[in-house]
């Protein structure tokens, strides 16, 4: 099972399937475009790596998914169950409606009674079967002592069915079987839409969790073994290969290397690590293999302590009540009061005609029943999140869209968020061609990010590496070699004999003659970062940059993007405090960040976004995940969120309007089943159409 976030079209399906089937050992591959996944049937010994390489070869990012972690079956079953009930309700709605049309157009005594009987035989089992989700949740909310949206719905279903049975037995004129079934159908449609949106979000969130498979290489007397990090104990020896992430907190006992702490602290400069250096879980080992002695693993590691900080911030977050909740809180007592007072009034006015009074109160319940309300929010949210998903944004939280619409201040993290966390050379042109070519040759021997960037930059400038022999990488320091019989080195300042600190990321070249030459680097901007910042400023948002990196590096990025409010060297708690400060000033803050140092701030903000490359903890703390590399969808997302909140309000207004017209009719007893059916279907259709207007 692989995830392919960028697949989107018909051509993608055949490209991906053919690319995978060309890999030896693969029997078949099938793309699921709705979930953006491909399931591969292959020989058991085949690893995921060649498949991912094959997909990268044809231009798709792919990630391996742990099939065991994806509990897709449970949500699938629920969705299928809802769809089945929806199908049954739709079937019987159509049949009952056919019979009802005959009754409305004036069928005579015997025919009317016959039709009512048939309708009842279709409608009653349908209400019992299709209404179950509502009955269950109404019962649950009654037991908890609340009046949810489902209580009036269940009451209307039961009351309408029973009064209709009673009328049919007494060969009465009005039966509400059609209304009961239609109510069930429209509300189930809303429920199903709601479920679909949640299921897509949940499966994608599970996918992100399934991406990180936490394992470590434990050194034992007999050799190395791969174990889960939960099995590690304090004092164990763990080997971390170059390019690997530290699984635990520990102390280096053997080897030298450089580690990238950007996810934890926001520093973009790699830090030297050798014996007795303390390293924390989550840091990335860059150049040489390291052996660690475990100091803390699992629950006690710094990763977990940071997660506790997040929990505290989340607890402090005021609970946001969604528009739908507020609407139903105001609405459901009103429905009950109206219906019961109509019942009481007509009991009194007719001198105790129970049948008439129940009839009226059932009509009131049916007409006020929130068909449109039940559809209004799910239809808009489905349309909006579908639109955002296609742009590469995943809404993880139900109310995130509404909260996003209120945002007026955006706080960005720097490293890994606005920048890619990968460097690019800035001063290649200032060096003599020969020097750059030597540096390039040396850099080719290393897989250090600075070396890779230097080679890529030099190649783009049309240079060719000089001939350097006896290349040797000294982990943690740099690369050395022989060039025209002379020892040359490329690496850390101290190792090259340079002492100056430039305040920016740099690697030094010394050729033995003259002073060492610095090659400086700047962080590469994430694609779309400039557009997002410009777009947000144009929308009148306040934009801030908060980073744990050095002031020089932060100011350089802020200057390139045109952000004026900048905070550098911020600790995780300071970031969270800044967000809390802004919130206290009455701002609604959108926090965009990826690192562990951002998680507390992400949780404290009104709404938060993190890229898919972020650490697990950061993604869990944020409401929205950016699936692709491009950042540009963020400013679009704000626009869509505002638009969809407006649509939700409009939909509420539309359904309120229908109620204002129809409820007085029902109260005075003028509402026939025909009027109820008309009001219900017209309001449901108009809110759905309004939701689809979302652009």
């Amino acid at each position, binding site marked *: 099972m692989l995830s392919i976030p960028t697949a989107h079209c018909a051509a993608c399906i055949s490209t991906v399937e053919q690319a995978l089937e060309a890999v030896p050992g693969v029997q078949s591959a099938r793309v699921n475009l709705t979930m953006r996944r491909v399931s591969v049937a292959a020989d058991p010994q085949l690893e995921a790596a060649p498949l991912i390489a094959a997909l990268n070869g044809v231009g798709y990012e792919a990630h391996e998914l742990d099939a065991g972690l994806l509990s897709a079956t449970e949500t699938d079953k629920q969705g299928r169950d809802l769809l089945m009930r929806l*199908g049954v309700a739709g079937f019987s709605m159509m049949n009952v409606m056919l019979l009802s049309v005959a009754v409305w157009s004036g069928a005579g005594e015997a025919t009317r009674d016959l039709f009512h009987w048939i309708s009842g035989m279709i409608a009653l089992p349908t209400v019992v079967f299709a209404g179950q989700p509502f009955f269950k949740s109404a019962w649950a909310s009654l037991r908890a002592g609340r009046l949810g949206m489902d209580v009036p719905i269940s009451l209307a279903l039961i009351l309408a069915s029973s009064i209709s049975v009673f009328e049919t037995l007494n060969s009465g004129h009005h039966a509400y079987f059609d209304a009961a079934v239609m109510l069930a159908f429209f509300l189930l449609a809303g429920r199903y839409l709601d479920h679909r949106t949640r299921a897509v979000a949940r499966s994608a969130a599970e996918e992100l969790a399934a991406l990180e498979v936490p394992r470590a290489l434990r050194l034992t007397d007999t050799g190395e073994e791969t174990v889960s990090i939960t099995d590690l104990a304090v004092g164990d020896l763990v080997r971390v290969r170059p390019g690997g992430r530290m699984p635990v907190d520990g102390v280096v006992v053997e080897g030298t290397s450089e580690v990238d702490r950007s996810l934890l602290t926001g520093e973009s400069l790699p830090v030297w690590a050798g014996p007795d250096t303390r390293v924390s879980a989550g840091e990335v080992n860059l150049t040489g293999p390291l052996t660690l002695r475990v100091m803390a693993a699992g629950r006690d590691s710094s990763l977990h302590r940071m997660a506790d900080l997040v929990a505290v911030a989340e607890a402090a977050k005021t609970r946001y009540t969604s528009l739908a909740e507020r609407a139903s809180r105001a609405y459901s007592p009103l429905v009950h009061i109206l219906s019961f007072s109509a019942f009481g009034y007509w009991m009194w006015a007719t001198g105790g005609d129970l049948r008439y009074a129940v009839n009226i109160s059932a009509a009131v319940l049916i007409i006020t029943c929130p068909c449109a309300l039940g559809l209004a929010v799910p239809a808009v949210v489905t349309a909006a999140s579908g639109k955002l998903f296609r742009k590469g944004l995943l809404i993880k939280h139900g109310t995130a869209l509404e909260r996003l619409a209120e945002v007026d201040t955006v706080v960005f993290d720097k490293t890994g968020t606005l920048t890619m966390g990968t460097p690019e050379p800035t001063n290649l042109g200032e060096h003599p061609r020969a020097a750059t070519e030597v540096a390039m040759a040396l850099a080719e021997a290393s897989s250090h990010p600075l070396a890779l960037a230097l080679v890529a930059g030099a190649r783009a400038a049309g240079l060719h590496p000089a001939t350097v022999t006896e290349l040797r990488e000294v982990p943690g320091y740099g690369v050395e070699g022989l060039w025209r019989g002379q020892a040359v080195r490329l690496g850390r300042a101290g190792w090259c004999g340079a002492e100056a600190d430039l305040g920016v990321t740099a690697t030094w070249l010394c050729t033995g003659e003259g002073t060492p030459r610095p090659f400086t680097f700047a962080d590469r901007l994430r694609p779309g970062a400039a557009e997002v910042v410009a777009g947000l400023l144009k929308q009148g948002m306040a934009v801030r940059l908060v980073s744990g990196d050095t002031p020089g590096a932060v100011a350089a990025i802020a200057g390139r993007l045109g952000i004026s409010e900048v905070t550098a060297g911020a600790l995780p708690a300071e970031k969270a405090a800044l967000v809390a400060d802004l919130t206290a000033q009455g701002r609604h803050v959108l926090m965009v960040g990826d690192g562990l140092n951002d998680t507390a701030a992400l949780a404290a903000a009104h709404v938060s976004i993190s890229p898919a490359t972020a650490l697990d903890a950061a993604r869990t703390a944020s409401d929205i995940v950016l699936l692709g590399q491009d950042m540009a969808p963020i400013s679009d997302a704000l626009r869509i969120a505002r638009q969809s909140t407006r649509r939700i309000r409009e939909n509420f207004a539309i359904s309120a309007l229908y109620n204002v017209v129809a409820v007085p009719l029902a109260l005075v007893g003028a509402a026939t089943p025909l009027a109820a059916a008309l009001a219900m279907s017209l309001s449901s259709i108009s809110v759905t159409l309004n939701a689809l207007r979302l652009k």
Partner: protein
Amino acid sequence: MEVLTILIPVSLFLGGVGLVAFFWALKKGQFDDPHGDANRILTKDYDERPKP
């Protein structure tokens, strides 16, 4: 009105056939990937036996 004794059972039966067909489609997983299926008819790959 005697025609009703035939027409009503017939219409109910036809509706029932539709419902059974819907259940069958649901069970066969035809609603699992609506987006993909909509795009799949556009692929130009020649396949003698379409994938299950």
